[in-house]
């Protein structure tokens, strides 16, 4: 029995958020969607203050409350390896999974997909013929993925995913839910040679993320947990009965843990999309030349 999961070492993580960006580019997720999110939080009053970082992907629970909440079984747990997936072809966007999941890992897509792709979802861009003649559309030509996908969209996501042979990978269509897939496109495609890895795990500068089969004692996460057996470990919200498959190494956050530099500090997607769709024609910064 395989159950893919992770051991995440908070004693090593320094909160660089490379994993968030790797996930985003790998899966061409739209604005505001962070299938991998990294909490930065502090505890204790000055000067006895600690600051810790916590990467939080989908926990790919053994008892996924999102799947039990899903009325169409679009959200389901894959038997062969325990990845919890969203069948985009079946999902009706009711958002029950979002409510059912205690971890906040679900993202709804209610914009036209092109709107949320950092200005790249259109066939024309505001930068066309600016600072010299030419456009991105011309440079890409037939290579432009189209369909509201950014130029870094990998067509590997357009493949059908087993066991249903439907679309479950990459950025979701309009009106549908999405979340971390543990890079199912990597696990299922031998020819890319990246099975057994995820984008987040691969890029982490300090190897804080160990990905593998939690049932296999020789897997990376299990080995690392043994190596760090003198450190404490915990799982998130264990009392909810979800049986998450991500184990954290390090101290559990205190009750007074306060988020800093959190998602609230990120760019508001609506504001950004508005700017991208209606960019100003000219620059507005006052350039002062002292007399």
């Amino acid at each position, binding site marked *: 029995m395989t159950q893919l999961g992770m051991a995440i070492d908070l004693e090593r993580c320094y909160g660089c958020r490379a994993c968030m*960006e790797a996930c985003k580019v790998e899966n061409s997720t739209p604005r505001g969607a962070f299938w991998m999110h990294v909490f930065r939080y502090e505890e204790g009053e000055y000067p006895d*203050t600690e600051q810790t970082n916590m990467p939080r992907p989908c926990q790919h629970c053994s008892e996924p409350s999102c799947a039990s909440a899903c009325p169409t079984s679009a959200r389901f747990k894959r038997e062969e390896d325990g990845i919890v997936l969203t069948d985009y072809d079946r999902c009706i966007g009711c958002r029950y999974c979002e409510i059912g999941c205690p971890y906040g890992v679900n993202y709804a897509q209610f914009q036209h997909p092109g709107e949320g792709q950092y200005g790249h979802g259109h066939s024309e861009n505001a930068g066309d013929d600016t600072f010299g003649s030419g456009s*991105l559309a011309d440079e890409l030509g037939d290579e432009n993925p189209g369909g509201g996908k950014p130029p*870094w969209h*990998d067509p590997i996501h357009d493949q059908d995913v087993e066991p249903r042979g439907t679309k479950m990978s990459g950025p979701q269509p309009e009106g549908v839910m999405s979340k971390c897939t543990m890079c199912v496109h990597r696990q299922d495609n031998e020819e890319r040679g990246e099975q057994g890895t995820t984008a987040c795990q691969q890029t982490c500068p300090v190897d804080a993320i160990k990905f593998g089969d939690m049932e296999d004692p020789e897997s990376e996460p299990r080995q690392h947990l043994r190596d760090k057996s003198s450190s404490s470990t915990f799982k998130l919200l264990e009392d909810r009965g979800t049986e998450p498959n991500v184990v954290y190494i390090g101290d559990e956050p205190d009750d007074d843990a306060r988020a800093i530099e959190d998602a609230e500090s990120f760019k508001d997607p609506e504001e950004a999309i508005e700017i991208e769709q209606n960019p100003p024609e000219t620059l507005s910064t006052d350039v002062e030349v002292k007399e």
Partner: protein
Amino acid sequence: MQRNDSGNLDLTRRDALKAGGTAAALLGLGGTATHLTTTGKAQSASLEYEEVPTACWIGKMDCSATAKKVGNRVVKYEGNPDDPRTEGSLCPKGQAQIEQVYNPYRVKAPLKRTNEKGQHGEWQEISWDQAMDEIGEDLKAKMKDDARRVVFQVGRKKSPQWQEDAWVTGTNNRYDDSMEKYGHGATCSDAIYRAQELMFKTHGGSETDFENCEYFIGWGHNMTQGGGAHLCQITWPKQIADARDDQGMKTVAIDPQRRNSGPYTDEWVPIQPGTDMAFWLAFNSVLVREGYIDEEYLTTATNAPCLVATEGEEEGHILRTDDADDPAEEWDWADGELVYDEEAGEPVAHEAASAPENVALRGTYEVDGVEAKPAFQLYLDQVQQYDPEWAEEITDVPADTIENVAIEWGENAMIGSTTVVDGVEIPYRPVGTHGYHVSQEEMGLTSSMAQYHASQLVGAIDVVGSTRPRKAKYDAPQDYVKPFREQAFNPEKITPNPDGPDLAGSMFHPISSTGYSQSHVSLNNPEKYNLPYGPDEMTWIVQMANPVMSAPQTDTVIESMSQIDNVVVVDPWMSETADVAGDYVLPAATADKLQGPTGGWDGYADLEHIRFPSMDPLWNTKPDAEIFIEMAKAVDAYEEYVLDINDELGLDGTEYAYSGADEAPADPSEFLRDGLDRWARTKGHDLEWFRDGNVITNEWEVGDGNRYAYTWGMDNDYGEFNPYDCKHSFYSETLVRLGDRVDELMAQEGFDESDFPYIQDYNGFPTWRQPTMFDSPEEYDLTTFSWHQIEHKQSRSANNKLLNEIAPRSSIRLNPEDAGRIGVETGDEVTIETHNAQTGETYSVDGVVMIQDGIKPGSAGLPGTHGTWKDPENEELDEGPNVNKVFPSGPGYIAFSNDQSFHVRAKVEPKGGDN
């Protein structure tokens, strides 16, 4: 594919290419296989998968990377497991750079300005030929007249061999003159470089032997975000995390902010910004008091025992034998410096002393009737006053904390112990410390020296477990210090008249980190600074630099650059410098270019590799190398350029050297490829080998030179003396002598320390004085400090939409106590106003507050790299502010080495006044 030690699939590039099918067969060398034409649609929409070996473009390290491509599009950048620095990682910027490669606002063709400078630019598209013709004519005229009219201002070096090396050197050779060449170091970390050059005759930021370190003090944010020379922010966290997991290394962070050293900080020492020298002086006084002194290091390797006259003509100078070496010529170890040999009962030349244990570090002696003391005795006389109670008043660090940290340092240093590594016996001193960007404060150079004294006192210099004060790529002393000593010992070389606006070599800055910020102060005041040419007579070439954004003080820079006769900006975007001051903008490609050779090291191994283009350069952009090959032709210096390429690529003396311009391919992109191929051949490979995904790595053995400078002197003739093959300066005679000459000339020219506060800092030992900013009125009750956030890398990441999403603004970090007093909460808009204590000017910007307990009360943290305007979308998306608007430049806010201070007194108020 094989599993590596961690059990991960160890994919090699070859596996990927084989697995990718026929895509590999379609590839020639990167650049010849034209995947995207610039004239129209691409070839067939192939979905073939391919991997191209490349290097990350957005940061400074050129981390080896793989561009994953589908058809003709790059879809992802990933790290290369063979890069010892990264072991396959990329940081958040490296992952996000892909968005900028496709940025539709990239400059697409050479542009010529059509409106006046000093405002947003209007542009006319021109051909590369026209651009080169016009730029060439202008440069030829100025170079012929006087090369000092030309400034080459580089920011980030990326494969400098082809631009700031060969182009500058070749052109200088052609005109038998020298243009001004400036880097960005004064706003980066150069104060600590200068400190090392003076003290250790090396070059580069600090690096620590983390594999063997037990106790580490991170000074500033450098533990996780500041990096060191060519070691950015992947390698240190990796090595520190391993050191903590493997041997339980303990860490202390001296930083007004806790955040940047995150989980690695066992002890956070919040410090009042700008008072670091006081901390280190007190720290050292504890070491001295407690007897944590490595006498063997001091007597064998440094000038600590050298006799310094305390009276008479030579006061402050080291006394020498009559036949002593010229201290400027023999900059590494000049024979003949006197020490007192206790067994002989008389002063002798240092290297002729009977034994290190007989060399006196203390006492008062007489040399030819003149009183003299070992430099170390002078140090003892001085350092005792700087006790922890004294320092507590200034730094806000409790005296007990300073005591305890110093004693832990001394204990952990294991003075006297040795260990054997790779068969070589080396002192074992497992205590390390890093500072890097923190050195950019008003007394940053001398504060860095005080920090290094902490290592010198316990002998923890470039030995097992300790700090190496240099770039580990060097395996021998470096002569960067030589010009400083030449001026010190031949003071007539220093005059009131500089060659250019960075003032280097003149009485203003005999030691100069070049004037990334000061140059603009100078250009706005050419008479005061005795400049040979005003801005209207000069041409500036700005290569991968953006002074308008990245140099304090923004308005000063805009004013100066707007007056320069001709500004040529080479950049992928319409940088703010180009927008406001550019006459020509030449579009460089980004990751879509061939470039190299490049590489780096992690302290234990090194690597060399090539950046192959992820795609062909988009639009009419070019690799920087090709731009400068063309520019060499444009200034009639192509022959000299080609010959210098031999030197820059290490082809000289090999069969691969170019005999002359005729042998170089006429087409610049062919020349670039051919040059890189020749370079590859000197390494026993060819360019194709690198194109297949290979990189060259070397593991370093102890004794070869890169590891432990202590081994450099193993085979020299100095016996027990001179283990580092150069004499470390514990006492800075060079600064004393330079200071004497500077004082003389300043007085002659009618200046004193009220005009240039930094002239007080030319002392033999770091000497505390009040930073100029302390003179600001009390209403400016916060001290601002800055850093660059992990998500950004100078102004070139500011228009990256993915990074903007997770870090859209430079929030002003305040402690809850200060926020409460001001009456603001996280998210509130505020105005931060700073005060220039030298001139009385004030500056202000608006921003948003972020409250953290991890910020020291009395300080305000304001990170850099926001407030950009590369295009209208970027301008709106970036919420600012630009911190460089509120940092003063010029005297009072620069060190004597021209290094910029990033501290200033400020007040913060709710926007629109108090509620």
